[in-house]
């Protein structure tokens, strides 16, 4: 699969940066936080089912999967924190950042009750399973690329996480089929959940220079220079990423083709996993949507701050406490 997105035989070089050069590199905290925050926020949402699962086995399953996510989040947050200047701990980052500093996909902060439900409504298992399945399939593709990518630390974490994510995908895909090809009401709820959720996945494939640098082995000199600059910044340069008029920057000419190839490869791998399962579940792939959310650039909807208010409440009430 990776062969489709990689350029042919990139050669290591000891000279100045050249296009296509392959070299060990350290991803800046900005990039690491994306995957850390995805894991943390999804963990929180899954954990909200504890004590409320539809059956006991699912209560346990989601709690355990949430714990896997939390472990991944801790490793990634600790790693990101060590790269910062001054260094931060995993707790600093989890408990004392405000919503705008979080880099997770908007899709993962949506409440378990779905997109249109009232605040505090009961969780919808169909929506939860759809998100869990689509995200697990996506992360299998991402972990593979991080494993093969130029950052050795991320490769180590990916090496552990990918094995756990395979079990997550197995669980989620089983339920997609059970509920999709289930009863008439369960099928309808699953189809509705899929239609509601799918637009939020567009963000997952709107890639940028950092993705190009660290999710693939194709690196251009501009791309590497940008990452090097971010790594040295105490406050990463957000200008590229969060201009109000254009959340996702139009790629510079020499980025466009490799970016499209990377996004295309990622999406193809995702679809290859999903499509057979959706077919078996008798669900229909929704028509495309133009929605493009910007959670990974710190522009979140109304749900994240509510989630963080609960997650951060104890630590913020007793800053510096140890237990």
């Amino acid at each position, binding site marked *: 699969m990776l062969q489709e997105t990689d350029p042919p035989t990139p050669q290591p070089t000891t000279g100045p940066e050249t296009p296509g050069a392959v070299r060990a590199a350290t991803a800046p905290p900005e990039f690491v936080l994306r995957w850390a925050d995805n894991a943390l926020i999804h963990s929180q949402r899954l954990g909200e089912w504890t004590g409320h699962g539809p059956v006991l086995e699912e209560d346990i399953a989601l709690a355990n999967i949430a714990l*896997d996510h939390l472990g991944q989040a*801790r490793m990634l947050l600790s790693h990101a924190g060590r790269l910062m200047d001054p260094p931060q701990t995993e707790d600093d980052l989890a408990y004392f950042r405000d919503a705008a500093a979080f880099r997770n996909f908007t899709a993962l902060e949506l409440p378990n009750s779905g997109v249109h439900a009232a605040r505090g409504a009961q969780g919808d298992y169909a929506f939860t399973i759809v998100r869990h399945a689509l995200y697990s399939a996506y992360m299998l593709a991402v972990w593979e690329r991080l494993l093969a990518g130029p950052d050795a630390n991320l490769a180590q974490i990916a090496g552990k996480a990918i094995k*756990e994510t395979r079990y997550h995908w197995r669980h989620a895909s089983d339920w997609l089929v059970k509920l999709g090809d289930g009863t008439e009401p369960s099928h309808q709820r699953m189809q509705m959940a899929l239609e509601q959720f799918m637009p939020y996945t567009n963000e997952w494939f709107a890639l940028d220079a950092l993705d190009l640098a660290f999710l693939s082995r194709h690196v251009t000199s501009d791309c590497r220079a940008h990452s090097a600059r971010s790594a040295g910044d105490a406050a990463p340069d957000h200008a590229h990423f969060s201009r109000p008029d254009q959340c996702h920057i139009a790629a510079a000419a020499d980025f466009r083709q490799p970016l499209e190839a990377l996004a295309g490869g990622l999406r193809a791998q995702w679809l290859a996993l999903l499509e057979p399962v959706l077919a078996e579940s008798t669900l229909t792939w929704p028509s495309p949507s133009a929605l493009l959310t910007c959670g990974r650039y710190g522009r979140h909807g109304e749900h994240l701050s509510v989630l963080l208010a609960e997650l951060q409440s104890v630590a913020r009430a007793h800053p510096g406490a140890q237990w």
Partner: protein
Amino acid sequence: MSSDAPVAHSTLAAVDTALLEAVCAIPDPEIPVITLGDLGVVRGLSRRDAHVEVQITPTYCGCPATEMIRSEVLQTLHALGETSAQVRIVLSPAWSSTWISEDGRQKLRAYGIAPPGPSCGGTSIRWMDRRARSAGHDESGLRCPRCDSGEVERLSEFGSTPCKALYRCLACREPFDFFKTL
């Protein structure tokens, strides 16, 4: 592969070999019938003058026992007179359930936990076809740790801990945990 697992004793001084053996003998906090050595989570020991460092590797990313293992290792080292000691977590190579020793597997079985299967291979886990799974056949090839019957069914993908799944034997009707292959 289990060749990643063994810790080299030959290059250590006698006192450090003894330390390493003591650390490897620490019981796992969650499943006390097996030791850290049986689990293959102790990766090595190194020393610089009076300072000793033990490297351990976590099983699952979110395993809550990792913190407890860390503190038990430190306690053991302090009890053996090492006043300057440290535990370092290493992530690579990623821990695999194939690193569990044969002795460890026997102990798991005796305790009532079916031990994990052979390696999942480098990066792929082969899943049994969904229909066959729901028809009650199980892909793990595992046998009931009590009566050794191969007629088992999976009740829950996730059991008493994230690393285990819950099964039931259809012959003796007893439930049992399965230490999942990772």
